[in-house]
């Protein structure tokens, strides 16, 4: 693979296909989009298999001085690798999800999605801070169109809200970037990650970046654009929004806020914790009373992303690893849940929970997948959700007992609203004749669900595959930020070691009872 600019190639394939789709009739555009995303996914697999664990921190680097003011510099570490994999993995599934649901302006729709894929890969792979900004911000255009053109009834309000919220957040970050580059004399992200900004300035810079990432994550109280955008977007739009776009916020924290401003991050950790705690409890309660399935899942996303931010600002390895796994897991699980909603929405054209019921009777396979993803969302052991949430909460417990305590209620509330949703949709009586007459999943829908469930189980049973590539990067990040770690309020006292292990059994005693 030496010399092959695989990252550029991964962006070039969807880019060119997007142009082709723009001028293609519906049927051809679908095929082109599917093939292009599958090819990109295959390239992604090559990327992963060639990624050298324990090798150089930045791999597959490319650099070209194409522009004035910033350079075209790409390169990935383990964190970026996994997020790129998440994006290219979800993309073909999104195309499949839109196969029949989208009937008008198919070419433009597919082009918007492929363009989105280019931008997502670019955002995670950019090694120049301004190049990152270009990719990060450019996502507004296709997403605005996806929500606005192919969205639901209230799509215009949702698209405006999405656009303006996100734009306001990011422009302040741009100003901060200019200041940083002027101060450090380089726009290279790896160099900036090592640069020690003055503590006074860090405060302002951190706030400017926070304005952007907190909207993207989204953190309470800046989350209000999310339920609107989710509800109005078409199914695949919701999948991408929940699966990848929300991760841009978390990625921003892990790539910029933490390593570049460690002192400010510690200083503002309380703010992040406070907002996250409110988000976990409040949005979970809100999710509990939703009558619209998509809205429920959207609110649950806010709650899950709050676990991510809690883990990130725990300032230890478990927290960071947990946050990354929650991001990956949430990307898969919430994406899959939106797909589940999409499957029945395509049949009945309503997202109202009350219109369904007893689907386990007429759609048993569907109910099975839905159950799996519901459990993964709750964080049942054996699914990806458990690994991430456990690590995050273990991480935050070392920093703050209180935050850990409050955040853990999110798991309980999560179980409440998800099981309640599942009960109303899949169990109980078949009170609506039209819902009872729905057919079970088609082959296309199987093809969407099976890969995601496989990965969810894989990540739940053997998370090492996903932790290994980023272990060194997380360790490097931890080394950089641990000096600034805020004081911990949980002080576990080290007692004298026990004589025996906790599960020690006296052998002699068991002998006496003897063999009956």
């Amino acid at each position: 693979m030496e010399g092959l600019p695989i990252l550029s190639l991964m962006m070039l394939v969807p880019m060119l296909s997007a142009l082709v789709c723009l001028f293609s009739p519906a049927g051809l555009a679908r095929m082109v989009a599917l093939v292009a995303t599958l090819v990109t996914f295959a390239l992604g697999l090559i990327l992963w298999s060639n990624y050298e664990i324990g090798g150089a921190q930045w791999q597959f680097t490319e650099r070209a001085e194409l522009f004035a003011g910033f350079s075209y510099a790409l390169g990935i570490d383990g964190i970026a690798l996994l997020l790129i994999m998440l994006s290219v993995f979800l993309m073909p599934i999104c195309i499949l999800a839109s196969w029949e649901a989208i009937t008008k302006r198919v070419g433009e729709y597919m082009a918007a999605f492929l363009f989105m894929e280019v931008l997502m890969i670019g955002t995670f792979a950019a090694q120049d801070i301004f190049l990152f900004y270009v990719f990060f911000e450019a996502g507004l255009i296709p997403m605005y169109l996806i929500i606005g053109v192919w969205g639901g009834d209230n799509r215009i309000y949702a698209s405006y809200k999405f656009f303006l919220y996100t734009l306001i957040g990011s422009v302040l970050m741009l100003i901060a970037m200019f200041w940083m580059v002027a101060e450090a004399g380089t726009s290279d992200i790896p160099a900036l990650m090592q640069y020690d900004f003055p503590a006074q300035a860090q405060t302002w810079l951190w706030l400017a970046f926070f304005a952007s990432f907190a909207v993207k994550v989204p953190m309470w109280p800046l989350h209000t654009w999310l339920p609107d955008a989710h509800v109005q977007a078409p199914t695949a739009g919701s999948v991408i929004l929940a699966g990848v776009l929300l991760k841009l916020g978390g990625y921003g924290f892990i790539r910029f806020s933490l390593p570049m401003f460690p002192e400010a991050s510690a200083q503002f950790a309380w703010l992040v914790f406070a907002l996250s705690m409110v988000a976990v409890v409040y949005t979970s309660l809100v999710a509990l009373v939703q009558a619209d399935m998509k809205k429920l899942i959207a609110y649950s996303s806010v709650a899950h992303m709050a676990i991510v931010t809690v883990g990130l600002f725990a300032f230890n390895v478990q927290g960071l690893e947990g946050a990354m796994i929650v991001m990956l897991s949430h990307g898969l699980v919430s994406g899959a849940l939106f797909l589940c909603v999409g499957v029945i929405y395509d049949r009945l054209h309503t997202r109202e929970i009350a219109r369904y019921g007893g689907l386990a009777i007429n759609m048993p396979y569907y109910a099975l997948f839905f159950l799996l993803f519901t459990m993964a969302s709750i964080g049942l052991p054996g699914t990806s959700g458990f690994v991430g949430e456990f690590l995050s909460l273990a991480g935050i417990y070392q920093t703050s007992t209180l935050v850990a305590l409050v955040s853990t209620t999110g798991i309980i509330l999560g179980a409440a609203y998800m099981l309640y949703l599942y009960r109303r949709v899949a169990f109980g009586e078949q009170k609506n004749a039209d819902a009872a007459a729905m057919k079970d999943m088609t082959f296309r829908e199987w093809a969407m669900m099976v890969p995601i469930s496989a990965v969810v189980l894989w990540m739940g049973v053997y998370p090492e595959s996903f932790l290994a590539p980023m272990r060194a990067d997380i360790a490097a990040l931890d080394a950089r930020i641990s000096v600034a770690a805020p004081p911990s309020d949980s002080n576990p006292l080290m007692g004298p070691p026990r004589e025996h292990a906790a599960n020690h059994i006296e052998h002699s005693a068991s002998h006496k009872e003897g063999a009956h």
Partner: protein
Amino acid sequence: MDFAHSFALIAPELLLTGAGLALLMIAAFRGDASARLVSVLAAAALFGAGFMLVPGLHLGTDGPEVLAFGGLLQIDTFALFAKALIFLSAIAALMVAPAFFNSAAAGTERGLRAEYPILVIFACVGMSIMVSASDFMSLYLGLELNSLTAYVLAAILRRDLRSGEAGLKYFVLGALASGIILYGMSLLYGFTGSTTFSGVRAGLEGELELGALFGLIFVMAGLAFKISAVPFHMWTPDVYEGAPTPVTMFFATAPKVAGVAITARVVFEVFGGQVAAWQQIVMFAALASIVFGALGAIGQENLKRLLAYSSINNVGFILLGLAVANQAGASAMLVYLFIYVAMSVGSFVALLMLRDSDGALFETFADIRGLSLTQPAIAWALLLFMFSLAGIPPLLGFYSKFVIFQATVEAGLVAFGAIAIAASVIGAFYYIKFVKVMFFDEPADVVRGRSGMAHWVLLAITALIISPLGYLLTPSLTDLADKAAAALFMAV
């Protein structure tokens, strides 16, 4: 004095003047039947004059040998850069005119008049003189030549009420502004004893006297009027809406470039020693233009009027580069100007393509509903221009804001930059309204007319420039702008 040298320096202006006079003769003897020929020849003359600029732009011409006529004019790289943009915009304005004037869009006065290209040429001569002025006298000469032709151009549809109103408004308010500039110049002359830029600069050294300060403010106010910066912007929406659309396109580009260029020259070359005296004025004008340009546009239904507010908004960003008061800011400003011209030409050409089968133009939001279904090419091009004007990457409009704000922050004006960029989000609101109307609404399906080759070519070129491919232009563009900006500071 070496006249031959001076004449060599102003060869492009001489060519244009000669061409203008010759074409006037053709027009006078052959009448409006020759309008098309005159247009083509005028465009050729502009192109030729522009071509003459290339060696100078490429190699950079600076130093004492650029002074012509004993220091009345200086043909430095800065002037060349501005002239190149002016000529290009003028060619675009000539290209779109025949289709407009020869169709129902021109109302009862159907038919391109031969005066139109000639007036454009003379306006360009005026602007050329203006941007290369190094004396208040030559500045005023160029300014007035440009303004007088512009008044006529605005009112060129004599029997159209809106056009006449636009011309009259432009004339009354423009004359007022010229008077203000003239009064400012006379004050400066009175307090420094000179009209040359270097002489006035030398006379202003040290403590600024109250009278001279008034002179400075009057000159700045007059120039602000010419570039329609807030608070001297009131004429812009009316004139832009009333004037025939090709003329509006011309007003939004060439005179804007000239006005901004001469403003930059005056503040750096004349008032360069008194930065403290004008920086606050420019900062205020910049912020106010950004905010009012954006707020004023929100309620507009008429697209031309909306673009007028958009141009006010853009002038705000350009002035931001000026407020930085250093070479990086000036260079950023020139990059912005180039991109602004491309975006404006593109948007106006797209508006000119919104015609019914008779050729009458549509100019309200209601008419472009659902345009993406009926006229996808125009709609997608407009989408690019609007997102670009809003400064959303990866379009080139982002790069123009990028350089401006980078210069602002690097000069230490962080809070100022942060406020300005936050205000720019207001502008995004109405730019994305364009996209909303064209892409999200049900089609009105009234735009049925076909457009000629000239429109498509211009639309394609400008769309290509502002598309992400335009970023490949940025190294050479920045290089040119840097050279041009350096020329401004060389005299200091």
